């Protein structure tokens, strides 16, 4: 099984064994994940995690199990809904905010993912 983190948060990307970096907005991350789900990948963490409204989440990170084949329906409805939510509102681009705030957002994003990353053994031990 290939577990993989899809993220636009460079800090987090650097801390995992297997990741895919999306150079773009939180919506770009979700759209990319959607493409993977359409081809059969399964989502392992909820794409809307964090209790912040989308326009306050410049970073998005989703753990998936990458595979080809039948579409996983739970994953599909989650990612389609998440994309819809993010499309319906203004986004903050990661590079449009001051560094301290960006750092906070990146930190929260990383923290929210940490336990799940550990659960799927994706965190690089040398960085722990």
């Amino acid at each position, binding site marked *: 099984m290939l577990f993989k983190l899809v993220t636009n948060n460079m800090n987090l990307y650097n801390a995992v064994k297997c990741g895919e970096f999306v150079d773009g907005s939180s919506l770009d991350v979700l759209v990319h994940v*959607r*493409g993977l789900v*359409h081809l059969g990948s399964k989502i392992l963490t909820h794409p809307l995690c964090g209790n912040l409204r989308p326009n306050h989440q410049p970073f998005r990170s989703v753990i998936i199990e990458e595979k080809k084949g039948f579409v996983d329906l739970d994953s599909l409805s989650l990612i*389609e809904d998440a994309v*819809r939510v993010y*499309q319906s509102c203004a986004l903050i681009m990661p590079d449009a905010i001051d560094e301290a705030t960006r750092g906070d957002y990146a930190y929260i994003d990383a923290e929210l993912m940490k336990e799940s990353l550990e659960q799927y053994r994706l965190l690089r031990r040398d960085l722990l």
Partner: protein
Amino acid sequence: MSFKVIHYINQFYAGIGGEEKADYQPEIREGVVGPGMALKGAFKGEAEIVATVICGDSYFASNMDEASAKILDMMREYKPDAFIAGPAFNAGRYGTACGAMCAAVAKEFNIPVISGMYPENPGVEMYKKFAWIVETPDNAVGMRKAVPAMAKLALKLLKGEPVGKPEAEGYIERGVRKNMFYDKLAAERCVDMFVSKLKGESFETEYKMPVFDRVEPQPAVKDMAHATIALVTSGGICPKGNPDHIEASSASKFGEYDLTGVMDLTSETHCTAHGGYDATYADQDADRVLPVDVLRDLEREGVIGKLHNKFYATVGNGTSVANAKKFGAEIVSRLVADGVTAVILTST
């Protein structure tokens, strides 16, 4: 000081003429014209119609952006407090123009915008989010009922009074959520509702989740060898360049495309307008979404009578249920008229 209102009507209600004058260019006149008299009466002096905008329905429909920009410019000097359009009853193009103008005015001047239409007027579905549309009968006989209701709602909005639920105020539900303070805590309301549900009594949910209905299946096709099969897709396949500008999501239209002589869809001829999936594969070979090549083979082999020479496409992604219904109804009536036997609907 009474409130200043601008009224929008079409060439017909302005007494200029019928369909033959529908290309009448926008103009603004001081004071009341046509049905504005009735509105004026219903305002009872609390608001005044300072000007009336008149525009031909066809002119508006074929020059939407230009016409609305022009009208907004004409309105500016009057500094209106509210905008009333119609009522348009069940007149489709008039309703669409009223709705579009309401939306444009609300955006530009940030003032209350009110129209009146029959619920099935296409202007309702397109613009109810942006305007208060009072429900009217389907023709001008309903003028006497429609105008006082529109005036009443307009005055309420002008005075900043809270507007109640659609059924109480007589407007068509806009589908917009609005906060209000209830008499009871949300917790108490929830337990009340819970008790009603347990007892099997009627109750009204505060938030309706989407529900679905069903249709009886049509009988099977008996004679496939003589059947005409049509292709319809919600996967956004269209001639390359998307000539009808079908939106990548929340489509407001569908396209009708000719298949005469088309044996195979290629990256040269067709692509997808759909924004809800990775378009790479469909753009490489649109047969992957709309299997024209195979149906042509089956036609040649006599398995089917023939492939209908038009296909229909829209984008399913985020498209409102109402629009999808409208597309479906319109497409099928054209297919029936063309003598089609059965339909293959493909979705991504």
